[in-house]
């Protein structure tokens, strides 16, 4: 095709509109990401269904609730809940055009996320040490794949947020970078939502049915 000049895409300049909604691409990407989250809900629902159907089928391995510990659970939960909060603050700062605030809060979010991962891995190692791994029984397969998929999402999220922060640092807040930040924040909050259900359906239910 013929030679054509490159130009930035047309943008809205209404000062009341948050940056991430100003460009057409930003708006489309954000809506698309919302819809992607709908697909993620179906994905996790399938994993939950699998887990719930299999959670009693322990063969000759340990029962699920037997190995769960409240302390580790609470640490992980609070780390993730707080990270969701700080992530929200980061976006709040972004909407005030405060790049430094954004980066600071996001960095804290990442730290909390790493902390979560650390405790999750510790917990997995503990379970494996106690004789429960992915091949122990259907119930444990369900557990490791459900919780592991969430963990893999968090891991991916940490890399992703880091990449986006690098871009913000390099390019400052533009409609393009701020849309990216906003999308990663949606992703991060969503992982918190999933964790709430893991907290409830896996850990609380596991402990209740085991004790009661």
């Amino acid at each position, binding site marked *: *095709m*013929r030679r*054509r*000049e*490159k*130009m*930035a*895409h*047309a943008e809205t300049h209404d000062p009341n509109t948050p940056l991430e909604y100003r460009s057409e*691409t930003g*708006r*489309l*990407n954000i*809506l*698309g990401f919302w*819809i*992607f989250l*709908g*697909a*993620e809900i*179906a*994905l996790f629902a*399938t*994993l939950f*269904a*699998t887990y719930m*159907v*299999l959670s009693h*089928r*322990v*063969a000759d*391995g340990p029962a699920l609730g037997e190995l769960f510990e409240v302390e580790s659970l609470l640490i992980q939960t609070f780390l993730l809940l707080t990270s969701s909060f700080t992530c929200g603050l980061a976006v709040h700062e972004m909407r005030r055009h405060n790049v430094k605030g954004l980066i600071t809060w996001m960095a804290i979010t990442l730290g909390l996320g790493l902390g979560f991962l650390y405790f999750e891995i510790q917990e997995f190692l503990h379970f494996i040490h106690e004789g429960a791994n*992915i*091949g*122990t*029984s*259907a*119930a444990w*397969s*369900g557990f*490791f*794949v459900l919780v592991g998929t969430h963990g893999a999402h968090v891991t991916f999220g940490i890399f*992703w947020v880091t*990449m*986006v922060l690098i*871009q913000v640092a390099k*390019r400052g807040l533009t409609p*393009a970078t701020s849309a990216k930040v906003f999308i990663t924040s949606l992703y991060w909050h969503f992982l918190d939502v999933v964790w709430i259900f893991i907290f409830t359906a896996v850990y609380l239910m596991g402990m209740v049915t085991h004790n009661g």
Partner: protein
Amino acid sequence: MKWDEFFVTGDPMIYGADVSIVLTMVGILFYLTKYKKWKWLWDEWLTTVDHKKLGIMYIVSAVLMLFRGGVDALLMRTQLAVPEAKFLDSQHYNEIFTTHGTIMIIFMAMPFLIGLINVVVPLQIGARDVAYPYLNAVSFWTFFIGAMLFNISFVIGGSPSAGWTSYMPLASNELSPGPGQNYYLLGLQIAGIGTLLTGINFLVTILKMRAPGMTLFRMPMFTWSSLVTMVIIIFAFPILTVALALMTFDRLFGSHFFTLQGAGMDMLWANLFWLWGHPEVYIVILPAFGMFSEIISTFSRKTLFGYKAMIWSMLLIAGYSFLVWVHHFFTMGSGALVNSVFSITTMAIGIPTGVKIFNWLFTMYRGKIQFTTPMLWSLGFIVNFVIGGVTGVMLAMAAADYQYHNTYFLVSHFHYVLIAGTVFACFAGLIYWYPKMFGYKLNERIGKWVFWVFTIGFNVCFFPQYFLGLDGMPRRVYTYSEESGWGPLNMVSTIGGFMMGIAFLILVYNMYYSFRYAKRETTGDAWDGRTLEWSTPTAMPPFYNFAKIPEVTGLDHFWRQKQAGKVEKLKAEDIKPIHMPSNSGVPFIMASFFFVAGFGMVFEWMWMAIFGIIGVFGTLFYRSFEYDDGYYVSVEEVIETEKISK
């Protein structure tokens, strides 16, 4: 792994295939090099993000897959033509029906429809491209690579042989060792990523890229059906993704989801498979419904009857499609209550579908019906699809299904809906929009031959199968005894199958013939159409589709403008620079890494799999740092393009 396990050997048919694959490859490479087409191939096709070109590539791949699946079908029919035939042995037969079913549904029907959606929907809504052109290319290439990965199983490593449903524990490592089943898992997984992305892409496209004035209730019916289909895709495909991943874990990493050991549960696979599988069959029928709505309305020269009811019935079907999956395993013993509930929800789908049927009929009522080939396929659809539909309702009656399940009655049902519904629509849509894609019509006279030979062959092939089913012939048997008495009807069925094959050959001939001899279209409105895709001045729309985005004032906007004699002429002063996305080679490269990863997983060569996955992530990260805002097409270029074609 030994060599005798890597290359499939020992069968003249396979050697034949090996030779023809190598020859074709050499031929293509030679042609590309001799005529210096490499750059053209790369610039115009491999890196394109133009929805029309991607659509054409989808359709070409789907036609190839129809051929592959069709050859499989004819091989099966040959084996079944007479009792105790020795043409194929059991293992071969099993591989063939597995690849036939999988290829036809995943790599033929869906891509064909998605291809047509790609070509048509952005034009119908008056948009210059889809919402995410780059992602669209990723979708196509992951589909293509998934299909290729699945197809090479034929000559490398052996094909899967557990049926397209791959029930566990049959599909487990213990009972089906080797790469075959892995091909199924990885091929579908990779293609599934593309499908999910298509779902998101087109949902956003339809919601956000419509021309001004085109409210939701002014959208053409094909666009509506695409919208509803995308919703189903978005929520059904993740289920497949998970189900495939879990089985992959069972086979590769020793987990126990569906296995015999470790308290795994084989029923759960069936449950998850059909949680996706049932919505899937509506994914392949709803766009078909949309196309028939367009075609019937166009060639009756009349507004669609009951536009709103058509939309609500589709929304109902979409909602229901997630509530009926258990009808595929009524015989699993889930109890009377479960079976009753799912019997009723399943039958209820017949109601909105019936509404659509009658609305189509009454679209023709008081119309002026022109019997063009697309219209013939549509009429054939109505007449034949209802047979498939009502037998579907018979299957839905659980107590009776205990007798139909796993028999040829079922086989016949789903071919009646899949072929008379989906395949007829693919043919109809292809012929209808052919001038939009290539600038000329397919020859109508030859096209009518294709229609009659195919439709008659189709009925001759599948109608007897209802009776075979009622006579107790199970599906998936590679042969049967003389005493069973199934011989004559099977022979009839085989004859019908070959008639369809002949019709397919005539269709291909028609493409060649029309390419050589058909009169080229001079306007963009080949059929006196009603919707915006026909409003482009050139037969084939330019890459930016519309020099000036149309403003829509109602349903069938273009038709009404024509009626009122008010079709606007494009004026030079209306033209502004047009923003377009740039081409990118990244999707193709990313898909190639997917291939490497998939191939490694199939043979459990983990170093290779990890290399491929790193490559995939590498391309993702590369893309994340790429700030490409596309480019502007200058006013002069637009004027030039539009003038040249005038």
